[in-house]
C-alpha cells in the first residue's frame, strides 16, 4: 500500500463511503448479471435483454420518462420564474416543497381516491356537464401523478438559477431594444439552462425507473424498467436478469448525465438556496 501523503486524511471517510456504498453495489450488480438461475456463468441475460419484450419496454420507459420531464419543465419554468418575482419567495418555495415531505405511496393512494369513478375529479366533471370518465388507469392519470410527484425537483434548480440571474442583464437587454420574448430567448433562458439540466437529471432518471405508481395509478398498463426489476428480484427470484436490467438502467442514466452535464457555472444541482 502506498502512503496517502499529500492527501488530507479527512478524505478517508469520503473514499470509504464511495467505495462501500457506490462502487461496491454497482460492481455487485454487474457481477450478478453474468449468472443464471443455477449460478452458472452466462451471457444469456444480456441476450435476453435484446429480445423484443425488453426492448419495447425500454422504449416505452423512455417515452413516458420523456413526457413526464417535458410536462414538468413546461409547468416548472413559468412557476419558478413567477416565484422569483414574488415578495415572499422563500415562503412560496416552502409551500411547493412541503408536499415532497409526504410519503410517495401515501400521495399515490390519495390519487386513487381523487381519480376514482366517484371521486372528486369525476364529481367535478359531472357538475360541469361532461359526465363521468375513466380517469384512473389511463396514460393521463399516470403522467399527471408522476409530474405532480416530480415537480418540486424541477422547480428548485430552475428557481435557483433564475434567482441568481443578474437583473442588470435583463435591464440591459431591454434598454438595447430587445422585445420581452427576445430577452427571454437570448438572455434569460441561455443563462438558466444549467438549472433546467439539473432539473432534467432529477426528474428523467427517477422517472425511468418508476414502479408502484405504474401498478396503482396505471394499473400495469404502463410497464417501466423499474417494474421489471422489481418482478425479477421479488417474484421470479432471477437476480441475474434483474441485475442485467439494472446494468442497462445505470448505463442509460450515465448517458443522460453526460448529455446534461454542466461545464460552466449556472444552476446548482445541490439545491442551495442561500
Amino acid at each position, binding site marked *: 500500500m502506498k502512503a496517502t501523503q499529500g492527501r488530507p486524511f479527512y478524505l478517508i471517510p469520503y473514499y470509504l463511503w464511495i467505495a462501500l456504498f457506490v462502487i461496491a453495489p454497482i460492481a455487485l450488480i454487474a457481477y450478478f448479471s453474468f449468472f443464471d438461475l443455477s449460478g452458472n456463468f452466462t451471457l444469456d441475460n444480456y441476450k435476453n435483454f435484446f429480445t423484443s*419484450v425488453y426492448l419495447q419496454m425500454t422504449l416505452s420507459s423512455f417515452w413516458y420518462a420523456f413526457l413526464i420531464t417535458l410536462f414538468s419543465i413546461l409547468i416548472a419554468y413559468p412557476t419558478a420564474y413567477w416565484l422569483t418575482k414574488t415578495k415572499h419567495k422563500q415562503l412560496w418555495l416552502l409551500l411547493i416543497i412541503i408536499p415532497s415531505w409526504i410519503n410517495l405511496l401515501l400521495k399515490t393512494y390519495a390519487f386513487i381516491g381523487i381519480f*376514482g369513478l366517484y371521486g372528486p375529479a369525476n364529481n367535478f366533471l359531472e357538475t360541469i356537464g361532461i359526465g363521468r370518465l375513466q380517469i384512473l388507469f389511463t396514460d393521463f392519470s399516470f403522467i399527471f401523478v408522476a409530474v405532480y410527484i416530480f415537480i418540486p425537483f424541477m422547480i428548485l434548480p430552475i428557481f435557483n438559477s433564475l434567482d441568481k440571474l443578474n437583473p442588470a442583464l435583463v435591464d440591459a437587454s431591454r434598454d438595447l431594444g430587445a422585445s420581452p420574448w427576445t430577452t427571454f430567448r437570448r438572455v434569460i433562458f441561455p443563462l438558466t439552462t444549467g438549472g433546467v439540466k439539473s432539473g432534467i437529471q432529477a426528474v428523467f432518471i427517477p422517472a425511468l425507473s418508476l414502479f408502484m405508481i405504474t*401498478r396503482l395509478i396505471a394499473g*400495469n*398498463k404502463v410497464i417501466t424498467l423499474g417494474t421489471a426489476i422489481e*418482478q425479477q428480484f*421479488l417474484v*421470479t427470484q*432471477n437476480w441475474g436478469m434483474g441485475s442485467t436490467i439494472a446494468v442497462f438502467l445505470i448505463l442509460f442514466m450515465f448517458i443522460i448525465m453526460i448529455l446534461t452535464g454542466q461545464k460552466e457555472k449556472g444552476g446548482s444541482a445541490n439545491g442551495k438556496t442561500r
Partner: protein
Amino acid sequence: MKELIRAAIVLIAVSALLMYGVSFLERSTAKSGSGSITVYNWGEYIDPELIAQFEEEHNIRVIYETFDSNEAMMTKIEQGGTSYDIAVPSEYAIEKMKENDLLLPIDHELIPNLQNIDPYFLDLPFDPGNEYSIPYFWGTVGIAFNPTLLEGQTFESWDDLWNHTLEQEVILVDSAREVIGMGLNSFGYSLNSTDPAELREATDKLKEIGPNVKAIIGDEVVEMMRNEEAAVALTWSGHAADMMWINEDIDYIIPEEGSNLWFDNMIIPSTSTNVEGAHAFINFMLDADVAAQNADYVGYATPNAAAVELMDPEVVSDERFYPSEEIRDRLEVYENLGLEMLGVYNELFLEFKMDMQ
C-alpha cells in the same frame, strides 16, 4: 457553527433517550411472558383479537408481521435476519421450502387439536403425513362480478371474460400464475403445464382479452369492487368474500372449466427460536372456537371440521366458498414448477402486459 453543534447535540440526546425508552419497553413486555414468538402471515389474514387472546392465555408475546407474496416471504426467511417462528405459505411454496431445508418438523403430540381438521385436508401430496405443515385456510380462484353494473350479465366459464360487452371492465390480479393459469384453464389445459406450445397458446389467447382489461392490480381490487368502480375481477375466493361483506350485489363463481384450489398452511421455519411457543400457537389456532371466530373474520374457508359445526350454516353451506368435494375434484392445486418455469410464466405475463399498451 455553534448553533449547528447545539442542534446536533439536542438531536443525539433525544435519539438516545428514545432508544433507551424502546429497550426499556421491550424488556418490560418480554419479562411478563415466557418469551415471544414472531408470526409471519399474509395481510388481513387473522382476527387481531385472537392474537391478544393467545398472548393472555399462554403468556407469550406475539410479534406479528405480514407479507404479500409467497416469494417475498421465502426470500426473507432464507436471508435469516428475523427469526420467524410461524409462517403461512401456500402449498407449492411449502414444497420448495422443504427442498431448501427451511422447515422444522412439527410434533403432532403437541397439537392435540389436529383432530379437529377435516381429513380431506390432511396428508396432501405437497406434505405427506403433515410432517411440516398444518392447514390454516383454503380457497379457490374465480370470477367476482357485480351483475347490477353489467345489465344482469352472469358468468359461468372463463371464456365469458372475453365477451365484447366487457370492454374496459375486467380487473386482473397482478400475479403470473393466476393470469396465465386462466388462459390455460380456458383451453382445458393443466394449471401446472410446462408445455411451451400450450403456454404459447394460452398467452396468445390472453392477448385478445387486452381491450377488456381495465387494470392489473393487487389487493386494491377489493376496495374498487366494493365502491362499484369495477364490475368484474379475477380474484381469490376470500377477496370475493371481503367484497360481498360490504357490497351485497357482488357474486362469485368458480368457472366450469376448472380453476385453482389452494391451501395455506402454518409452518415452523428453520429460523425459529421458540419452537415450543410456535407449537402452542398452532394448537391454539386449531381450537374449534378460535378457528370459527377467525374464519368469520377473515372470510376464507376453514379446513377445521369442528369449527365448521360452530359456524353459521348459511355460510358453510355456500358452495361458492365451501365447494363440495365433487367440485373440488375438478380443481387443481399448484405444483412447485421450479424457478426456471416460474421465470417462463413471468416472461409470458410480461409479454401479455406489454401487448396491452
